[in-house]
C-alpha cells in the first residue's frame, strides 16, 4: 500500500516537471536566432507564400499565445503536427522508438553485463598486471569519441574486411519477415552496438571494479574467506550484491537517456531511430518534433529514476521508500 502511494506520488511529480521542461524548451527554441518560417518556406520565397506559411503554423502570433496554445494542446494529449512532414508528432516519435530501443537497449544491457563481469573479475586481484591493464583500457575506451570509434569500426569491418554492414537497419533486398529478417537486422546491429558499448562498458568496468574491491575489504568478506569459501564464490554470492548499488545508479542515469543517447551513433550508422529524428528536426527547426522529443525524454528520465529507486530498495534492505 505504501509502495503504491509512493509510485503514484512520483508519477504525479511528472506533471510539474514536464510543464517546466516544455516552458523552458519553448523559450530556448524561440530565443534561437533565425526565422522558422523562412526555413520552412525555402530560400527567397514569395512574401505572400511566407505570410501564408506563418499563418498556417501560427507563427504570426505572439510568443505567449503560441506557448499557451501548445500547452493546451499537449494537455489534451496532442503533440501537434510536424512542420516538416505534416504527420502527427506522436506517430513520428512512436515509429522511431523500436529502432532506438533495440540499438540502445542491446548496447546498454551488454555493457552492464560485460562491464560488471570484467570489473568484478579484476577486483579479486587489485593491483595485479591484468587489473592495471584492463583499468587503463577502460579509461581509454571511456574517453574515445563515439562517432570517431564508429568510423574506425566502419573502416575496419565494412571497408577493409567487408563483413559487416555500415548503413541502416536492414539490407535493401534482405528478407522482410521471419527469422531471415531478424538475422538481417542483427547483422546490421553489430557495429552500432559495438561503438555505443565502447563508451559505456569502460564506465561499468571502473565502477564494478572499485565497488567490488571495496566490498572485498569488509570484515564479513574476511569472515567468509576465513571459513574457506573459494574466491569466485565469495565474489558471486556475497560481494557482488552489495557492490551492485553504484552500478544500478549509473544504469539508472543512462536508462533515462535510452531514447536519445544515441544521436551521434545513429547519425554515423544511418540508423532510423529517434536520435536521428531529433538531429534532423533540430537542423530543420521542426519545433513540434523537438518539443515532443523533449517531453518523451523527460518522461523516460523520470521513469528511469523511479525504477532505480525501486531496484535500490529491493537490493539494499537499509533503503526504505
Amino acid at each position, binding site marked *: 500500500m505504501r509502495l503504491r502511494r509512493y509510485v503514484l506520488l512520483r508519477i504525479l511529480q511528472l506533471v510539474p516537471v514536464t510543464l517546466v521542461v516544455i516552458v523552458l524548451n519553448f523559450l530556448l527554441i524561440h530565443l*534561437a*536566432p*533565425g*526565422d*522558422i518560417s*523562412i*526555413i*520552412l*518556406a*525555402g*530560400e*527567397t*520565397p*514569395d512574401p*505572400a*507564400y511566407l505570410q*501564408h506559411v506563418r499563418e498556417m503554423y501560427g507563427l504570426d502570433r505572439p510568443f505567449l499565445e503560441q506557448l499557451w496554445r501548445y500547452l493546451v494542446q499537449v494537455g489534451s494529449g496532442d503533440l501537434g503536427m510536424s512542420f*516538416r*512532414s*505534416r504527420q502527427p508528432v506522436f506517430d*513520428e516519435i512512436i*515509429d*522511431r522508438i523500436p*529502432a532506438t530501443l533495440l540499438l540502445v537497449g542491446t548496447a546498454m544491457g551488454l555493457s552492464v553485463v560485460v562491464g560488471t563481469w570484467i570489473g568484478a573479475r579484476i577486483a579479486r586481484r587489485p593491483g595485479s598486471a591484468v587489473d592495471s591493464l584492463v583499468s587503463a583500457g577502460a579509461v581509454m575506451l571511456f574517453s574515445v569519441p563515439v*562517432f570517431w570509434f564508429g*568510423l574506425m569500426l*566502419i*573502416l575496419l569491418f*565494412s*571497408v577493409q574486411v*567487408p563483413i559487416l554492414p*555500415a*548503413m*541502416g*537497419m*536492414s539490407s*535493401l533486398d534482405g528478407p522482410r519477415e521471419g527469422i531471415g529478417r531478424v538475422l538481417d537486422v542483427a547483422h546490421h546491429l553489430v557495429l552500432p552496438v559495438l561503438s555505443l558499448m565502447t563508451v559505456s562498458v569502460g564506465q561499468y568496468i571502473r565502477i564494478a571494479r572499485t565497488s567490488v574491491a571495496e566490498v572485498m575489504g569488509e570484515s564479513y568478506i574476511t569472515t567468509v574467506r576465513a571459513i574457506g569459501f573459494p574466491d569466485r564464490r565469495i565474489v558471486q554470492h556475497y560481494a557482488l550484491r552489495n557492490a551492485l548499488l553504484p552500478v544500478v545508479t549509473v544504469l539508472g542515469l543512462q536508462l533515462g537517456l535510452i531514447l536519445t543517447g544515441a544521436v551521434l551513433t545513429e*547519425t*554515423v*550508422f*544511418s540508423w*532510423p*531511430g529517434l536520435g*536521428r529524428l531529433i*538531429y*534532423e528536426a533540430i*537542423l*530543420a*527547426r521542426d519545433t513540434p518534433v523537438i518539443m515532443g522529443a523533449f517531453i518523451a525524454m523527460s518522461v523516460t528520465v523520470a521513469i528511469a529514476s523511479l525504477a532505480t529507486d525501486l531496484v535500490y530498495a529491493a537490493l539494499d534492505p537499509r533503503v526504505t521508500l
Partner: protein
Amino acid sequence: MKRIGVLMAATLVTVAATAGAQQAPATLVVPQTGEPRTLSPNFASDPHAFGPGSNVYSHLVAMDWGIVKGTAAYGDLAKSWETSADTKIITFKLHENAKFHDGKPVTAHDVKFTYDTIIRKKYPSLAVLKSVKEIRVPDDHTLVIELVEPEVGFVPMLAQISNWTAKIYPKHLWEGQDGFETGPHVNAPIGSGPFKFVRWERGQPVELEANADYFRPRTAVDRLVYRAVPDVNVARAEFDAGRLQFLPYDYAPPLAEVAALQRDPRVKVVFTPSHFSRDMQLNLARPPLDNPLVRQAIAHSIDRDAMNRLAFAGLWTPSAYASIESQKDWINRDAKFPAFDRARAEQLLDQAGLPRREGGWRFAITVAPPNFVDCKSMMEVAVQQMRAVGINARLEQFDQATWFSRVSQKNFDINCYFTRYGPDPDAYREHFATGGGRNFMSYQDKELDEIALKASMISDKAERQKIYKRIQEIVVRDIPYINLMNEQKTTIIRAGWSGFNVEESGFDTSYTWFGYYSVKPPGRS
C-alpha cells in the same frame, strides 16, 4: 512420344539459358544527407525530396546541367513551344503518348490543374508563376500560357524552378484535395516520369523502379534507391568499398584529395561548372562600406589566385567579371573588378579618411559566410587578405538557418554569396535592382533599374546583350558585391558508369538537375 520428350527438354534448356543470360537488375543507390519530409515536391521546398520527385514526376519544360553549355530550357512533356511576337503568349505542344504510372494519359489539363493549384495555394513556384495571367487548354495536347507582362525569361525560369517544384501532378488523383499536402498520394506519388514509385517507409530508403511505359525509351537503370546517409565520411567509406556507385557533390571529397582520386583508375572525378558564382556581398547601408573608396580598396585587397590555391588546391577558376564563364553570350570581358594591389588598397583607405591607428587597424568589420564548405574556406582567406591592408576583419559563423535570416534582415557587414547569372540574364534584377529579392546589399542605381526592366521585356538578343554589358559596367563601378570564383561542383563516379546529370554525357537528357534518366551502368548502352 520420345520425340516430344526430346523437344520439350530442348525447349526447357533454351528457356533456362535465356534466363541465365539475363543481367542482374542494375541498381543505382543515391546517398542523401537526410530523408525527404514528404514525396510531394510541389507544396514546399524540401531538398531531400528533389531527387525522388524529379525522377517520378515529369515537368512541362526542364533544365539540367546542360545549362553550362548554353541550353537554358528544353521540353519534357512539351514537344515544342512558340512565343508570340510581344512575348506575352506562349503556346506549348505536348507529347501525345505520355502516360501517368496508373495508365491514364497526361494532358494539358493536368498541367493547367497543377499550375493553377500552385498559384491558388501560393506554393513556392509562385515566384515564377505569378507572371501568369491565364492558362488555357484549346485541346488535350495544347497549352497556352498568357503572361501579365512581356517577360523573355519566363520559360527558362519555369524550367529552372521545375528542378525543385512545379512537377506535373495527375489531375484525376488530386482533384479532391485542397492542395498538394494532403491525401493518399503525398507519400505514394503517381507521376509520369522515367521511374515509378515502389516503396517508402520512414527511416528506410525510398525505392523507385524503371517505368517500362515511359514515353521515351526506358532507362538503363532498373532500380533507383535514395538512402539517407547523414555522415559524409561514412558515405565516402561506402563508395571506397564499392557499395555506392557515385557520390553526389553534397559529399564532395576535400579538394586536396582530388589529385590522388584522379590517379585511381577505378574512379572518375567530374567537375561541373554552374551559372552561379561565389562572391562577397557588401552591406552598403553600413559605414564605412557606404563609401565607394572603401569598397574599391576591399576589392584591391583580394588575391583570387592565392585564395584558389589555399581554399581549393588551385582546382577552381577565379573570376573578376560581373558574370560567369557559362554565360558566354552575356559576359562583358571589358568590365572587371579592381585587380589585386595591396599598395593601392592602402592608398584608397587613407584617402577615405581611414588611416591606420594604434595596433595598425583602420576599422573593424565582420565576415559571415553561410555554412558551405567552399564559402567558409574562401572567407578564411579573404579575412587574412583584408587584415593585410589594415582592415580588422573577423570571421563570424552561424548555422545555416541563422545565417540566412540575418542576411534576409540585412544584418551583416560582408557576406559570402552565390550570385546567379542565368538561365536568363534577367537574374541581374533579382540581385542588383532596387528591392530585388536577393539584393541584400541595399544597392540602388537608377540607370540599372531602368535598363534592366527594359531588357526583361524585349526579345531582340543583340539589344539585350548591349544592356547586360552595360549593367556589368555599372556593377563593377559601384561594387555592391565582389565576384571571386566560378562555382564548381565535384562529383566522384565509379569507372564504367556514365550519363550522370553532372557530366557531359548526361547534359540535356537528364530532365532536371536531379534526374537520372540517362545514367548508364557498366556494360549497358
